[in-house]
């Protein structure tokens, strides 16, 4: 009855698990694209031309590729933020606010620190410091919610949403007030430009792709390593999967919840910092709108796996970026893209629909409603 033949080569196993995990998202995307095409047809457009425009806009030229990567960068960071929390059994709806907080404080360090100090800083101090402060403040912002969850049981979904309101309104207040760019021509709620020493160097002349993109890929790998290869990752996952067993195993569940939220917030804060230091060189109200919510979708679509998130982030980035070209070619409204994104999500979230359409048998375990014992 027993057989040892099971453990194939690790590579084969990896491929198998990748194809298992990506089957449903892939089919969800396919289905959404087909339905999107039908809708385009119904409103009188040409679906093939539309999708061609989308692809061209996203990948058709060096510039298109660079822009897609620019879009993907914050998506990757913020998607990782949401996914990390998911792994720890927490639903972080607050990436939006954490990202804004990180961006504001990075910008502050970026433009104000040299003034406060009265001298210029070298880039190897100023830039990392600006990024670090963005992560730290994002982490603290989320950590508050973690502490509320750990010590009072307050639900993180409600509290992160509340914290989003506070973060976004405070940002607006600051950007219209003490942090506002005082240059005489400015009427926009935005900070001054950050110092040269707080900016990331360019990768290529004339393209907007920046080192933040490379960093995003490295961080994705790091998060994978952290979750799967370290004792901290083991603790986070155990608390996420079975908090009772985690407590039994001697894991400090409260501390782990707070730490998970802080790490998640730090990643979201990093998304904001990188937008400031790598791309915009300032923070402006409206620059980051929606990233934090798209991140939830990306984490879902990527099944909370860092590689999946990178891919999902690219998909979202390509759709956002290609939409302009699509609109130019077909005169269709950009909102169609949001609709297709929504359809993809719908099919991923309600994967039963996809499984039904394509007759895939669920491999999942059967649902156990009250935990009895045994098996």
């Amino acid at each position, binding site marked *: *009855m*027993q*057989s*040892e*033949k*099971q*453990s194939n080569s690790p590579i084969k196993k990896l491929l198998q698990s990748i194809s298992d995990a990506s089957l449903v998202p892939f089919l969800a995307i396919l289905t959404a694209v087909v339905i999107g095409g039908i809708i385009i047809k119904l409103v009188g457009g040409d679906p093939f031309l539309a999708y061609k425009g989308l692809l061209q806009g996203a990948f058709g030229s060096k510039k298109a590729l660079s822009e897609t990567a620019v879009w993907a960068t914050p998506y990757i960071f913020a998607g990782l933020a949401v996914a990390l929390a998911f792994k720890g059994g927490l639903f972080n709806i607050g990436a939006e606010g954490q990202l804004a907080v990180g961006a504001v404080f990075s910008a502050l360090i970026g433009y104000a620190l040299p003034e406060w100090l009265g001298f210029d800083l070298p880039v190897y101090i100023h830039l990392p410091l600006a990024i670090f402060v963005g992560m730290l403040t994002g982490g603290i912002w989320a950590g508050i919610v973690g502490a509320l969850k750990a010590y009072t049981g307050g639900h993180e979904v409600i509290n992160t949403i509340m914290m989003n309101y506070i973060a976004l309104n405070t940002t607006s207040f600051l950007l219209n007030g003490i942090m506002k760019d005082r240059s005489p021509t400015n009427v926009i709620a935005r900070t001054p430009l950050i110092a040269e020493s707080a900016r990331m160097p360019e990768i290529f002349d004339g393209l907007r792709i920046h080192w933040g993109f490379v960093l995003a890929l490295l961080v994705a790998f790091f998060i994978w390593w952290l979750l799967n*290869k*370290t*004792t*901290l*990752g*083991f603790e986070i996952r*155990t608390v996420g*999967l*079975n908090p*009772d*067993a985690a*407590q*039994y*195993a*001697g*894991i*400090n569940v409260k501390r782990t919840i707070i730490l998970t939220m802080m790490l998640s917030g730090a990643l979201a804060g990093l998304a904001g910092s990188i937008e400031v230091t790598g791309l915009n060189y300032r923070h402006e109200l409206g620059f980051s709108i929606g990233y934090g919510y798209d991140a939830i979708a990306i984490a879902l679509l990527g099944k909370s796996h860092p590689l999946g998130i990178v891919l999902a982030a690219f998909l979202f980035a390509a759709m956002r970026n290609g939409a302009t070209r699509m609109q130019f070619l077909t005169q269709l409204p950009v909102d169609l893209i949001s609709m297709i994104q929504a359809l993809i999500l719908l099919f991923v979230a309600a994967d039963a629909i996809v499984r039904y359409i394509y007759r895939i048998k669920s491999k999942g*375990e*059967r*649902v*156990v*409603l*009250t*935990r*009895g*014992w*045994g*098996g």
Partner: protein
Amino acid sequence: MSESKIVLEAKGITKQFPGVLANDNVNFDLRKGEIHALLGENGAGKSTLMNLLYGLHNPDKGEISVGGKTATILSPKDSIALGIGMVHQHFMLIPVFTVAENVMLGDETVKNGSLDRATVAARITEISKQYGLDVDPNALVGPLPVGIQQRVEIVKTLYRNAEIVILDEPTAVLTPQEADDLFRIMRDLTARGVSIIFITHKLKEVLAIADRITVMRAGRVINTVIPSETDSAQLANMMVGRQVILTVDKKDHEAEEEILKVEGISVRDQRDLETVHNVSFTVRGGEVLGIAGVQGNGQTELSEALTGLRSPTTGKVTIDGKDLTGKSPRIITEAGLGHIPEDRQRHGLVLSYSVADNMALCDYYHAPFSSRGVIQPKALDENSRRLISAFDVRTPSPFVNAGKLSGGNQQKVIVARELSRNVKLVIANQPTRGLDVGSIEYIHGEIIKMRGRGVAVLLISAELDEIMALSDRIAVMYRGQIVAIVDAKKTTREQLGLWMAGAQVQAA
């Protein structure tokens, strides 16, 4: 009984799971109004066969016929329509729903667009009366004792007009009293023409209640016998394929110095009711102290308080001289505790982790399992392979998720982990629940070996036989208090039974 007709027949059933042939050309039949017991060692394929009959899995090969007609059972919907009901090893109830809501779930009665709770409640009351299954249709399921939750499951099958009821290890979680009630209910059901398949590891129960007994081993049916023509030893032999020693060979052993000292602790449960009152005892190295008692008399809260899962409200707990009252599980573990928890799936395992990860669940953070915060997969792997073979855990590989193992093998993963650690004290709560006789023999042997090495063992068990077999001293717990502590050699089952039922202790 032998002339009654066959209501269910499975022919040549084969089911392959990755790496395991769980059912291998199995033939099985059930006659009208009989109790057909299914025996077999852990992982023999009993639950799998039942899941196939119930439509939770589909067989690779073979044929099932119900009432003489070939049946296609692709999902529980089909089997329910054919009059088959199943009470799982795991209950499948929704705790925040009432009994009536749980019973109608999936088969809701609707009146004017809303759930017709009154009609359902009336039917439940009717069924309860008819079969002596006392349940209150309006009670919430969550707080009900397991014995009653199980009745709800049975009512649920009868509500759907089941004529064939499958009970997968129903008695493992029941007190002896509740088990007796269940047997009475089972007899009532068969008297009314219901046929029952009954899975258990308790040979006494099988001999007492079954009409026929089928024994499985390694996915195959070994034999079908009738109780009057067999006995425990023969059944055990058929199950395991070798002689099983049903008694524990225990040498006298000088107890050493005190390891666990409990002084006047009181504990409150999650409803904030005090369920342990002012309990004191000690366990010495090289000694097994058994705590006997009907389940629900404070044993759960007591063991939680000793292992750090819950803080006592008053009193003091010391292990090897260190005051560990109200300390965290990590600190207590590091002081030398091994803990086999009562609820294996709630505390003992992370079901979606591999067997290897689960076998290091309490030790993942130090050498050799990790170094500088990085997990060492090789060490996890070696450790699990060693334990899998030592404790005969039936798993295709160390990488399989613990949730894929059979119930008994899940238990063995925990026992192997906790008994193999370098500990001074073992707190074992229902250590052999759901295990087959062969595994029980082995684990009892391991506990006695630990005692021989000077480890202190606190054994909490609902099985009086287990308590009697292993303990040097026995404490009886009743309504949150220790009502007696006696030398195991100087007491009898009857005496313990009286104390467990609340009889006063005579000053001896």
